[in-house]
C-alpha cells in the first residue's frame, strides 16, 4: 500500500490540491455577496499603485502627441522645445476642457436624478479579457457598500460587488454574470437584460410582445439594484422564431464602456 502511494504520490498530490481548490471555490460561491479579508487586503494594497498609474496613463495620452513631434534639426531645438511645451499645454487644456464637459454633464444628470449620489473616478479595469468589472476610487468610508447601483448620464453602468475603505469594484451590466430586470420603453414589455461582453440581450420577452429595432430598454425597478427608468440600451435586432415562448432580442448598451471615466454611485437612500 505504502509502495503504491509512493509510486503515485504526484498524481495523488495533484488530485488532492485540485479537490481542495474546488471545495474552496464552491464554498466561495455561496458567500459571494460580501468582500472577504483577503480581497480587502489585496485591493487596499494595490489602490495607491493603481491610482498612481491611472493618473500616469491619463497623462501619457495627453503628452504622447507632443512627445512624438520632436524636431531633428539642431538649429531649431529651442523653438521645437518651446513648440512641444506649448503643444503639451494645449493638450492639457484640451483634456481639462473635455473632463470639464463630462463632469458638467454628470452634474446636470445628478441634479435631474434628484437622488443622493456620489461621483467617483474609474482607476482600473478588469484584469482579464473575459469579465467586465472596473475599480473606482471611493469606498466604504464614503458610504459605499455591496449592491449599490452605478450610473452615468447615458444610463446604467453596473453595481458594486466589492468594497474596501477607499476603493470599490463595480460589475458592469455587460458582464456575462450580470442580469437586470428590464422594460421595453415603448411597449412596456418585460424581460431580463443580460450582459454578453460588449453588448446585451433581452431575455424572457414573450413572442406576442411588440418589440421593434431602436426601441429603448430601461430598468424596471424591480430587480432591487437600479431605480426605475434608467436606460440600458436600444434594440439592435429582433429574432422571432416560429417556435418557443420567447423572442431573441439583441441590445446595444447606451453607455460607451470603452470611454467610461467618471461615474455616479447611487447612495442607499436612492435605492428602489
Amino acid at each position: 500500500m505504502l509502495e503504491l502511494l509512493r509510486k503515485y504520490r504526484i498524481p495523488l498530490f495533484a488530485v488532492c490540491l485540485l479537490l481542495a481548490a474546488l471545495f474552496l471555490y464552491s464554498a466561495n460561491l455561496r458567500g459571494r455577496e460580501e468582500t472577504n479579508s483577503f480581497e480587502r487586503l489585496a485591493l487596499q494594497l494595490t489602490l495607491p499603485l493603481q491610482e498612481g498609474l491611472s493618473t500616469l496613463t491619463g497623462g501619457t495620452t495627453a503628452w504622447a502627441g507632443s512627445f512624438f513631434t520632436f524636431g531633428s534639426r539642431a538649429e531649431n531645438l529651442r523653438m521645437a522645445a518651446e513648440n512641444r511645451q506649448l503643444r503639451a499645454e494645449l493638450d492639457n487644456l484640451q483634456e481639462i476642457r473635455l473632463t470639464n464637459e463630462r463632469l458638467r454633464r454628470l452634474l446636470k444628470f445628478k441634479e435631474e436624478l434628484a437622488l443622493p449620489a456620489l461621483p467617483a473616478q474609474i482607476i482600473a479595469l478588469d484584469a482579464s479579457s473575459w469579465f467586465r468589472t472596473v475599480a473606482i476610487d471611493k469606498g466604504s468610508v464614503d458610504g459605499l457598500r455591496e449592491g449599490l447601483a452605478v450610473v452615468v448620464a447615458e444610463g446604467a453602468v453596473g453595481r458594486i460587488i466589492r468594497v474596501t475603505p477607499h476603493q470599490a469594484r463595480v460589475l458592469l451590466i455587460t458582464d456575462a454574470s450580470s442580469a437586470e430586470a428590464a422594460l421595453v420603453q415603448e411597449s412596456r414589455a418585460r424581460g431580463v437584460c443580460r450582459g454578453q461582453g460588449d453588448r446585451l440581450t433581452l431575455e424572457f420577452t414573450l413572442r406576442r410582445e411588440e418589440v421593434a429595432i431602436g426601441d429603448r430598454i430601461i430598468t424596471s425597478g424591480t430587480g432591487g439594484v437600479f431605480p426605475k427608468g434608467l436606460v440600458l440600451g436600444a434594440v439592435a435586432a429582433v429574432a422571432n422564431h416560429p417556435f418557443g415562448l420567447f423572442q431573441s432580442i439583441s441590445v446595444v448598451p447606451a453607455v460607451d464602456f470603452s470611454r467610461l471615466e467618471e461615474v455616479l454611485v447611487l447612495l442607499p437612500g436612492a435605492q428602489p
Partner: protein
Amino acid sequence: MTRIGGYFALGYLFMVLQTAVLPWFFPFHFTPDLILVLIVYLGLNEGYLRGSLLAYLLGSLMDVFAGYYLGLYGLALLATFLAVRGAAGRLNTESSMLLLFMVFCGTLVEGLLLIILGSLADAGPLWLLIASRLGPQALLNLVAAWVLLRIAAGVQRRMAPRLQIPGLQRLDSRYEP
C-alpha cells in the same frame, strides 16, 4: 523562499499592469494575460509543491481583480500549472519556443477550464464570450510571452550577466539583443 517571494512580486507587478496600464492600450477589451505566462513559466521550471502553491496564490490574486467568482482563477490556474508541469517532464524545458507554444496551449486550457467552472457558478453566457475570443487571446498571450522573453533576456544581459534565471540560460539566439 526568496524565489517564491520574487515570483509573487513579479505576479503582483503583472497584476497591477493588467488592471491599471495595459487595458488602456488594447482595444476591444483584450488584455494580455501576463499571469498566465508566469504560470506556464513556473510549470516549465519549478517543482510541484512550490509551483502549485504559487499558482493558487497568483490565481487567488487574479480573482480579486478579475470577474465575480472568488476561487475561479485560483482553481483554473492551478490546473493549468499542473497540466504544464505534467507535460514538462517529457519535453525540453530550456527551449524558449516551447514556452511560447505552452503559453498558446495554456491559454486554451485555461479558457476551457473557465468555461467548465463558470457553468458551475451560473455565469450566464460566459462560455460564449470565451469561445468566441479564445483564439485571438491565445495569439495575444503568445506575443506577450515573446515580448517578455526578449525583455528578460535583455535585462539579464545588461543588468546581471552572471545571474542564472531558471529556464533562460540557453535561450534561442534570436531572443538575445
